[in-house]
């Protein structure tokens, strides 16, 4: 597999209903993440997109794991190794966010028993930077050639 494998840019709206569902799923009780009035009183134009939800939004791609299939990797052998976020601006419900991803690096450890993919994603809103994500994926139990 070649590094720098790019996934086509993908634009998705952050939706209020989805953000409320996410807040419920992670047990978030702070009302600014589910109640529009509370969010506005705290100075937000709409419900804030919480710190890790940018990772989730990219899962809305039609086939979010296709980059693994293209690299010949079985989803059942994949573990999440690391996840990093660098934030440039807050995102809120109603924002249209664009995700551009590529595989920045790939390497092996333990004589090929573990294979690592480093995937970088740039998130922008109308061309302005919102966040940079780095996702390190570990492929286990695969004797890589």
């Amino acid at each position: 597999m070649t590094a720098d494998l790019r996934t086509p840019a993908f634009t998705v709206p952050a939706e209020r209903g989805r953000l409320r569902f996410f807040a419920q799923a992670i047990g978030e009780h702070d009302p600014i993440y589910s109640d529009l009035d509370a969010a506005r009183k705290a100075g937000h134009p709409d419900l804030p997109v919480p710190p890790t939800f940018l990772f989730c939004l990219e899962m809305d791609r039609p086939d979010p794991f296709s980059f693994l299939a293209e690299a010949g990797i079985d989803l059942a052998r994949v573990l999440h190794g690391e996840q990093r976020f660098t934030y440039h601006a807050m995102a809120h419900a109603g924002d249209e966010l664009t995700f551009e991803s590529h595989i920045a690096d790939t390497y092996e450890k333990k004589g090929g028993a573990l294979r690592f993919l480093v995937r970088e994603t740039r998130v922008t809103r109308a061309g302005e930077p919102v966040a940079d994500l780095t996702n390190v994926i570990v492929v286990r139990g695969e004797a890589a050639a």
Partner: protein
Amino acid sequence: MNNLHDIAVGTELPPLRVPSISRTTLALYAGASGDHNPMHIDLDAARAAGMDDVFAHGMLSMAYLGRLLTGWVPQERIRSYSVRFAAITPVHGQPTCTGRVTAIEEADGERRARLDLRVALEDGTVTLTGQALVALT
């Protein structure tokens, strides 16, 4: 919300204890997050892959740890947030999120706290370790 002027090296964040993770939690998280990887929600798929059971999404624990941060400072102050997933969180695991200030630094014209973060289960297993940079001024 705490007083940002009182934050110093060694300051501990109030720990966040999360209820035991049920299969319902995993189903809801799969739906809300959009991560439909069957290894987290489908026992048949997990067993076919040689696992004894489904296990929690790593990003669910990272979301809990994110709650620790946003419960401590307004989210717009978080400059960066990263974790390493150290161990799988089994069904019925009960995570506790903790954090501690390890440095106060100046960068890009603001004062920032560097935090060490951790999620551990009740048996002591550390499932996530991480770091965050938070603006204080």
